[in-house]
Structure formats: structure tokens, C-alpha cells
């Protein structure tokens, strides 16, 4: 499948996974890939803090107003990658403004009544955020909206909030908002979820649980699972370094042989463990997998972002048309 077809198979991609698996990185990669395919992406970040800007080589934090993280025509033909945050507090103020209640929004916050109402109607904050995503989608604010979702456990409650609210609130504008969010989430042509995990035991267990919970309880379409942080294979890991040196007519410095041997053994062991976890994930979850390499750095800047984008594009090329 070509990346353009992948990015146009739905209008909102919600990227979810537990903390530390690289959810934000994958969100950035998907947006960059859409941009390179000539589609206009919008990255939406929900927690008001994230390293998204640094990945595109920019300073500072994101805000409620859209910013351009990667300009158009870099490289030629690419669309700009835009990004913004969308926090519940922002969404509430905007909601009240839109519904002619600008005057009470300040008072709600000042009196602490926001907390009371948010507790009385659990999920109302999530509904406001998803309602805003729905508005962006309906207004065609972008060809593809990529949402960097809250961490895994909360992702389920977050996406389930609309259905829960339909049960709890019987009338009023919030109910219709919830209904529209349910409509958005249950239409695969409008929204799909990309789950992200690491090839390790607990993250694999959690992604499997999250996947089934999302399908059963939210009825949302799951796209491929991204497995992040796979060590690229290395040839000759089982060859003794002294033999390898002799083969090319050289000798090793003192201590070098031992270091090479230990590093090779470590990589070999982790490659096996990762392969086992990838296999376990495939057995437990019948979804296509997209593999991203570990880059042996923790800093994702523009160079690493493009490296990962190329890797993801290659992986998507191997997907059949069936996943659309």
C-alpha cells in the first residue's frame, strides 16, 4: 500500500499506547509521512506538554493556536505539518463561547465548579476534547488529523467517554455532542486507532488488552499496530571477534575482543527476546504490524524523524490493500 492511500483511508488517526512506548514519536512520524505524500496533516496534542516541537527541530511548546512545525515544500511537493494542543480547559472555554455562555465560563473556573461538574459527569472533559476533534474533522481542517492520545489505560476511558455519557445524561447539548462523537468514532472512514507498543512483555500484554477493550467497548476500528524500538539485525553476531579480526588480517586492541563479544551477546539475546515478543503479539492480536527500528539514541530530531518516516513508509508498502 502506498503511504498516500494509507493516509486517506480515514480522516482521524488516534495514536494510543502506554507511557514510554513512543506514542508521540509515532504521531509525528505519521504526520510527516502524510505531509511527504502531499496531504495536509494536523497534529493534535492533548496534554499541553510534549516533545513534538523538538522532533521537528523547533523550540518551545505547542499552544491552542496552530503552528507550522514543518513548512510546505520541504522537500518540494510536501505539505506543511501543522500542530496544536487541545486541552479540556481550552475546549470547555471554547464550547461555552460557542454556546453563548462566555460570561459563565470564568465563573465556572473561579468557583471551582468546573471540578464539581466534571466529577458529576465523568467523561465530560473527554467529550469536550473529542467534540472539538469532531469539529476539526467536519470543517476539514486537514486531510489527516493525527491525535496523540492520552496514555493507554486512560485511552480506553477517553474513547469510551461518549458512550458512557449517553447513558448518564438524557437531555441537553452535551448529550447531542456525545452522540456526534460516538458517530465519529464508530465510522472507520472517519476515525481509526493506531496502537503503539514495544517488543517487551508488559507493553505487549497491555496493547493486547487495550485492543480488545477498544473493539468491544468503543467499537472503534483498529489500524495496524506499530511495534517500536526493534533492534536492527546485525550479521555475524555469533562469530568470535578474534576470528573475525584474523579473517581481515588484523588483531584487536587489548580489551576490545571482550567488549565486542559482550556487546554481540547482548544484542543477540535482545534480538531473540524481541522476536519472541513480536511473535507473541502476532498470536494474540490478529492485526498487521508495522515495525520501527531502535535508532540507538533517545533524541528524536528532524534527522531521526525522517529516518523513522522512511522506515514506516517501507513497512506500509508491504501491507496489502485489505487493511484499508
Amino acid at each position, binding site marked *: 500500500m502506498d503511504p498516500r492511500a494509507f493516509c486517506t483511508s480515514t480522516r482521524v488517526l488516534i495514536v494510543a499506547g*502506554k*507511557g*514510554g512506548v513512543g506514542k*508521540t514519536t509515532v504521531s509525528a512520524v505519521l504526520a510527516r509521512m502524510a505531509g511527504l505524500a502531499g496531504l495536509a496533516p494536523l497534529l493534535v496534542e492533548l*496534554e499541553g506538554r*510534549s*516533545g513534538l516541537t523538538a522532533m521537528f527541530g523547533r523550540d518551545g511548546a505547542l499552544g491552542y493556536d496552530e503552528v507550522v512545525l514543518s513548512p510546505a515544500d520541504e522537500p518540494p511537493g510536501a505539505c506543511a505539518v501543522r500542530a496544536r494542543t487541545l486541552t479540556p480547559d481550552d475546549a470547555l472555554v471554547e464550547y461555552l463561547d460557542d*454556546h453563548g*455562555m462566555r460570561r*459563565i465560563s470564568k465563573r*465556572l473556573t473561579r*468557583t*471551582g*465548579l468546573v*471540578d*464539581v*461538574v*466534571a*466529577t*458529576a459527569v*465523568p*467523561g465530560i472533559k473527554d467529550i469536550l476534547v473529542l467534540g472539538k476533534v469532531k469539529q476539526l474533522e467536519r470543517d476539514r481542517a486537514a486531510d489527516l488529523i493525527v491525535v496523540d492520545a492520552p*496514555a493507554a*489505560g486512560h485511552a480506553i476511558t477517553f474513547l469510551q467517554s461518549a458512550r458512557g455519557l449517553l447513558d*448518564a*445524561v*438524557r*437531555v*441537553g*447539548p*452535551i*448529550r447531542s455532542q456525545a452522540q456526534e462523537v460516538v458517530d465519529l468514532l464508530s465510522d472507520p472512514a472517519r476515525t481509526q486507532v493506531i496502537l503503539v507498543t514495544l517488543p517487551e*512483555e*508488559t507493553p505487549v*500484554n497491555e496493547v493486547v488488552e487495550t485492543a480488545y477493550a477498544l473493539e468491544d467497548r468503543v467499537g472503534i476500528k483498529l489500524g495496524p499496530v506499530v511495534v517500536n524500538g526493534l533492534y536492527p539485525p*546485525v*550479521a*555475524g*553476531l555469533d562469530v568470535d*571477534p578474534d576470528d*573475525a579480526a584474523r*579473517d*581481515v588480517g*588484523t588483531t584487536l*586492541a587489548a*580489551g*576490545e575482543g571482550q*567488549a*565486542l563479544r*559482550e*556487546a*554481540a551477546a*547482548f*544484542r543477540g*539475546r*535482545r534480538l531473540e*527476546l524481541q522476536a519472541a515478543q513480536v511473535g507473541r503479539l502476532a498470536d494474540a492480536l490478529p492485526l498487521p504490524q508495522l515495525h520501527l527500528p531502535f535508532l*540507538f*539514541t*533517545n533524541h528524536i530530531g528532524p534527522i531521526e524523524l525522517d529516518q523513522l518516516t522512511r522506515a514506516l513508509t517501507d513497512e506500509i508498502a508491504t501491507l496489502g490493500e485489505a487493511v484499508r
Partner: protein
Amino acid sequence: MVAGRTIVIACGTGGVGKTTTAAALALEGARLGRRACVVTIDPAKRLADSLGIESLTNTPKRIDGTWPGELWAMMLDTKGTFDDLVHRYAATREQAEAILGNRLYRNISSALSGTQEYMAMEKLYELHDSARFDLVVVDTPPTRNALDFLDAPRRLTNFLDNRVFRLLVMPTRAYLRAVSAATHTFLRTVSRVVGAEVVDDVITFFEAFEGMETGFRDRADAVRTLLTARSTAFVLVTSPRPDAVDEATFFAGKLGDAGIAVALLVVNRLHPRFGGTSASGPDGTVLGSLRRNLDDFRRVAADEEANFAELAAKLAPAPVSRVPFLADDVHDIDGLTMVADHLVARPGS
């Protein structure tokens, strides 16, 4: 550190191995002959199974082992802990029942931000107070907002003190009635958005809660005092990833503002550091690829070390415990023992 304190609080962002660290510290306490209890929040299933705490419990379970002390563990039941508090401070059984049956109350334990943190601290206080343990180690919820944890007791009491609703439930004096009229108009607008039954639930809740807020506030103050006592140690847990280190740094700053020093920095999931040189090549040969492999790990290890160097310097003289990437997830006592050994190893060893 485990030997000298009575309370250890493990904090940090999600996915950095906080629960495992907390359990390993409690195990270390038991190995030192102390009666140790770990309060976990949402542990990975296999770890919970191995500790015998596969379900929510409000009472610790003892784990048998060959250590001289005692090791106990429990998984925090937020709602159960809150229910106990309501029973403790309600004037009558009827008052407690009225609160426990209210829909807003039932939502508080799952939806009010900070409640889980507060209940973790409440449970900590209760276990400490019971004198059954010499050491209580508590895991904290993986909140994005580091402040939640220290602010939780105050947030909840502020919630319970909400002025708008206080006014609604005691409209006895004339001037209050006047304020109440404006408040009623305001609430009508709120009802229009979320529905009148929600507002009714809220009012019923605050009526039922009448008179209990003092007890809650006093308890919250006592918990806060305990958190800042010298016998309480905060352990900051992080992974070497820049985002996790950023969160840890932010959190250390907030603790500092509250006059609390971090007693130990734990950096989990470090890549191993191999010796050798950064020789490379020849390209296209097995030796070249073996050298590139070593270089990969040397690079990532240096990168990781640099990521938390500044944080470690800021927290000095608190020691740094480095825990390497382990071959498998920790899911039994042997695994925890291995983590505990790494935790107590002298820095740099």
C-alpha cells in the same frame, strides 16, 4: 536509605518501572530484617500474581520468603479506602449510607483528578499509624501532573468546601439567601448544559456531606505533615529517555518547592556499558559489523548517561541507582531480588 526511614514514596511518570522499584525496595527492607509493606497501584499482572495480590485489596497480604524480616503487599483499592474514610467521619450510619449511595460520590473515586493519589497517601498514613510495619513503601499513580500528588489532599478538601454548594445547602441567614439567588441562576445555566438531574445529585451530595469536611481537612493536614517528615523518603524513578527525565526534573523542582529533598534517584532500563574502543571498519566485513554493534551500544549508553547527568547533579548529594535493562520483565521474587541488588549497589559499581 531503606534501613533508616519509615516511609518511602516512589514517584515518577508512567512506564519507568516505579511499581517494580517500590516492590524491590520493600523486599530490601525485609532482607534487612524490617517489617515492610508495599502499596502498589495497578501493577503489571504477573508481578501482582507473584506477590499474591491479583485483586484489589484493602488489607496487605504477607509474602513468604527466606528473608529475616516480613514482606507484605497490597494493591490499592481507591474506592474502598474512600468508603472507609466516609464511615470514619460520618456522624451516623445513615449519613454514611446517604453519601455512599450518591451518584456524585460514586464518581469521585474514579473521576475526580487527584483522588487516587490522595487515597494512596491516606492508606500510607493508616498503615504507618497502625504500627504493624517498620517500613511502608508506596507506589504513586502515573500522573502527568506531578503536582497532583502533593496537592491531592488539598484539592479534595477544596472540592468538599466548594463555596457555591455550601451556600446552597445552608441558606439560613438573609445575606446568604441573597447570594443564593444569584447562584441559583448560575446553576440553572449549568443545568441547561449538563441536565438538571446532575445538579440535583451534586446538591444532594453536599447536603449529605454536611459536617464531615472538618474531619477530612484535619486528616488531609495530618497526611501532609507525615509526607514532609524527616522519616519519609522520596525516591524519584525515571528511565533515561529525555521525556521521562524532563518529567522527573519537573517533579524534583516541585518537591523542592515544598521543602522536600529527593533521597534517591533511580534510573531504570539503562543499556549496558561495554568497554573497548571506538575502532571501526573494515566495512563489509564481520569485524566491521561487530565493531558497529559495539559502537551502537557505546553511543546509546553515553547518550543515556548525558540525559540524566544534569538531574543527578541537581539532586546531589542524593545517590543515583542505575538499574540495567533486564533480560525479561520482573515477575517473581528472584527478579525483584535482582532489582533490589542493583538498587543498593553503590553508585558507579
